């Protein structure tokens, strides 16, 4: 035999589910959420999506080229980041904002750490928070949803449901002045908000697909959403005049997107089940604290980023019991 023969350590067979496969599944799972966004917010939203995806891929390739590392855009992780970033931006975001977001996400959030797998923070969320703090006006200008067919060129802007209650409580000290928001609208996505976060239904469908495919485990979404539900429920029971009801909290804002797609990011979430549970509860608590008492109407992005920072400590504290360990 010769150099043609391959020798390596065992095992000699590998599961077909490689990184590329995983990333493809995530993209499939994100499509419903993005599609609903495009349906309600029309052409501007569609532009945000493609600009974001394309610029993330281009930025990744450029940076890797510059650093002399192998170009890994084929593994699909840059496309996933691009799609997630788009879904976290306002549907009417100007193109330059999207490009800056891509630069921050891929450059600062991922490649300075050595690329996929080495980043401690979720790249798309890093970009989102960066943009939110740097460009508060552009990042909080929300289009009013209108189904695709009746969308006209002059886009109308409005507030997100969470923004509306935050303002009401701040101005009047109660929710009384807030108009009624239909849970059905929240569920379907007929509300203002980030491009990909509006439809709870589409996101749940996508998330369920990921769980079915075993890309993510159910622990993070369930415990995250559950924590938000329980905590907001307690405060709603205490004072429904100031605190919105838990169903509203669960279906509004970026919670679904965050719980199914951002907090479950493989790279930046804990590896053990116990760790995932702790991580998810932490995300839930911080989200609720920011939503109810913080300066920002929405706390999902912040909470996940903060919990990302805790992941090494969580992993350290939740090591599995070794087989045959003395107990």
């Amino acid at each position, binding site marked *: 035999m010769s150099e043609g023969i391959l020798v390596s350590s065992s095992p000699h067979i590998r599961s077909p589910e490689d990184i590329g496969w995983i990333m493809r599944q995530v993209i499939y799972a994100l499509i419903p959420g993005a599609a609903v966004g495009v349906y309600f917010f029309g052409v501007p939203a569609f532009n945000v999506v493609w600009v974001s995806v394309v610029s993330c891929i281009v930025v990744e390739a450029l940076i890797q080229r510059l*650093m002399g*590392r192998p170009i890994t855009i084929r593994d699909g992780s840059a496309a996933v980041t691009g799609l997630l970033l788009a879904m976290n931006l306002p549907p009417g975001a100007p193109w330059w904002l999207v490009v800056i977001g891509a630069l921050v996400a891929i450059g*600062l*959030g991922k*490649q*300075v*750490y*050595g*690329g996929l*797998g*080495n980043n*401690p*923070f979720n790249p798309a969320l*890093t970009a989102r*928070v*960066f943009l939110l*703090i740097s460009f508060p006006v552009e990042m909080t200008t929300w289009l009013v949803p209108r189904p695709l067919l009746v969308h006209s060129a002059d886009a109308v802007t409005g507030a997100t449901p969470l923004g509306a209650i935050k303002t009401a409580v701040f101005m009047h000290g109660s929710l009384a002045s807030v108009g009624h928001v239909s849970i059905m609208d929240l569920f379907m996505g007929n509300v203002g908000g980030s491009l990909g976060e509006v439809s709870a239904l589409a996101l749940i469908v996508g998330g369920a697909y990921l769980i079915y495919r075993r890309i993510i485990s159910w622990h993070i979404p369930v415990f995250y959403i559950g924590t938000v539900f329980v905590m907001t429920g307690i405060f709603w029971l205490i004072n429904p005049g100031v605190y919105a009801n838990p169903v509203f909290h669960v279906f509004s804002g970026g919670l679904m997107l965050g719980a199914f797609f951002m907090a479950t990011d493989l790279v930046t979430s804990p590896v053990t089940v116990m760790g995932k549970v702790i991580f998810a509860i932490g995300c839930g608590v*911080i989200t609720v*604290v*920011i939503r109810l*008492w*913080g*300066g*920002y109407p929405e*706390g999902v*992005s*912040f*909470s996940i*980023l*903060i919990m*990302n*920072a*805790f*992941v*090494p*400590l969580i992993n*350290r504290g939740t090591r599995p019991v070794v087989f045959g360990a003395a107990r």
Partner: protein
Amino acid sequence: MHIFIHYVLLVVGSALVNNFVLHRFLGICPFLGVSRSTDTAIGMSMAVIFVMTLASFVVWLINYYLLLPYGLVYLQTIVFILVIAALVQLVEMIIQRVSPPLYQALGIYLPLITTNCAVLGVALLNIQLRYDLMEACVFALGASIGFGLALVIFSGMREELDLGDVPRVFRGTPIALITAGILSLAFMGFSGLVK
């Protein structure tokens, strides 16, 4: 009950919202210097919590019972530093005796608590914000817990980064600063939580 909530808010405010490291950017030197391993970070946090709280207590007494009555407020900085330096010396001796490995690991950063702006900062803020003795201590405790929290989280992340594949040019302090920056962005989420 009301006063209790007041103290809780004080702690939350100083630990999370206006975190000394991530929001006020005080105490960056030990934050970058001793965050290489979680164990030393925990040791450092303990030392800082001790020094900061005790320093706030002593300094408050000196300020209100010594400096103010005799009109010596202009001596504030120098007296405070004197007191802090003495406290740090004390902590150093204790650690050296109790845990030599920790002493070794902390190295130069232990005596540097003396010039740690976070400690002096909290002492001066206490005066500036006109806290009473109890508030000052609680505020210092919260601030030092916040410092410790940031330090420990950060050390965990840096341990992970050391195992990662960070490009050569970014290794060490550059990537630490970038990470601290993003962490600081994330902590901005707490803004507005406590007025």
